[in-house]
């Protein structure tokens, strides 16, 4: 979970401060925004691994707007929504729009840490898959070049051998001359 860049968006100063303090203690790099407008401004300037946003906020931009703005800028950023009690339907709508998870109020910090650990694990797996793919691409490219050269060389030699076989199996003319021609072809 170390080094995750997280943006906490909440109009409630107590939740904001609590999340910033706890997540910073877990070695996350945390920014905070007090509403959707400020969040979108921060997102436009910096990449975040995770945006943890309240659903209902004053100022004309709610959690769904923050989600849309985040996904439009960085589709890789994971957005976790914090929803009020009994608003599961809204949370499901958010998930359909690309949110990776949701938490219900009151925010339980252990639950937050658990969700972030999951995000961190997925990121590590994605990086690992990317690294493997990169290694495979390089190996495949190098092996491909070598195999192509060998394939052409072997085919050339096979053709040459066929020609030599033809010359040696001819019945007419001088045998020494035929051997001589064959040897010259080999050289």
């Amino acid at each position, binding site marked *: 979970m170390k080094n995750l860049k997280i943006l906490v968006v909440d109009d409630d100063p107590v939740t904001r401060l609590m999340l910033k303090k706890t997540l910073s203690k877990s070695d996350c790099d945390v920014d905070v925004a007090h509403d959707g407008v400020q969040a979108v401004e921060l997102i436009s300037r910096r990449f975040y691994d995770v945006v943890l946003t309240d659903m209902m906020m004053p100022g004309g931009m709610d959690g769904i707007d923050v989600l849309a703005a985040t996904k439009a800028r960085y589709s890789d950023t994971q957005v976790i929504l914090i929803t009020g009690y009994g608003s599961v339907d809204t949370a499901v709508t958010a998930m359909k729009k690309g949110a990776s998870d949701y938490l219900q109020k009151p925010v339980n910090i252990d639950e937050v840490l658990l969700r972030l650990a999951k995000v961190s694990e997925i990121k590590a797996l994605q990086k690992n898959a990317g690294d493997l793919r990169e290694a495979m691409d390089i190996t495949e490219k190098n*092996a491909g*070049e070598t195999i*192509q050269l060998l394939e052409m060389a072997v*085919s050339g030699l096979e053709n040459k051998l066929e020609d030599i076989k033809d010359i040696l199996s001819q019945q007419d003319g001088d045998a020494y001359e035929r051997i001589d021609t064959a040897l010259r072809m080999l050289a």
Partner: protein
Amino acid sequence: MIKVTQDEIKILSKYIKDVSGVHLDLSKAYLIETRFKNILEETGCTSYADLYTKARSDPSKTIERKMIDAITTNETLFFRDSGPFELLQHKILPDLIDKRASKISNFFPLPIRIWSAACSTGQEVYSISIVLKELLNDLSKYNIKLLGTDISDAAIAQASYGSYNKFEIERGLTRDKLQKYFVANGDSWKVKDEIRILANFKKLNLMQPVNGLGKFDIIFCRNIAIYFTVEDRKALFHKIADILEYDGYLIIGSTESLTGVCPRFEPKRYLRSIFYQLKE
């Protein structure tokens, strides 16, 4: 997790080879366990031997299909290893059209028959469609048969639908091609009808006879024979030689070789790629 025993690997690998051609040696216990774990649970089997018995005696072949879907590797991407597609666009298609045009009256559309022998989820076929669309401006002048086959039902279903998630779509496609040939559909992207319409998909086991497919001018058979035994590889490329037009083109995977596999083919090099033609 239920462990697979050495005896079970032997039985299962023979069964998998019979139904799919995929060759698994004794070192592939982890592959059997990771790929068949879910099927084992779903079918309520208590061991891999039990799974084998159930799969064999299932008249609907549902378990067999699931096992094939699970064991086949669908590692593919759009324009995988750009070489073959450059080859297709700059060498093979122009040469083929020249050769065919001199033999056929302008009145008839020119036939171009292409087969992608192990098309997985369709990326190779749609990459070919895109090349055709970009190279041949007026497609009505051509009678295009572009066939994609694969042994996996799930892969063929996705290929036919032509829909890809963001991870699949991000691999190999330029932004320009994505905008031009795909439409966004929620979280996924769907290939446009003009590209989709060029292709046909069909389930096919390459271990079975393939001559029912007819003749082809161009055959892509990339990165599938690597999963077969040498004997099965030989048989496959002989079957391919039988249905490739005498002056047709075969493209195999960039790290594959036909040396010692099928002497009927001759490699030819163009820029940084190789294609094969039948020896005269």
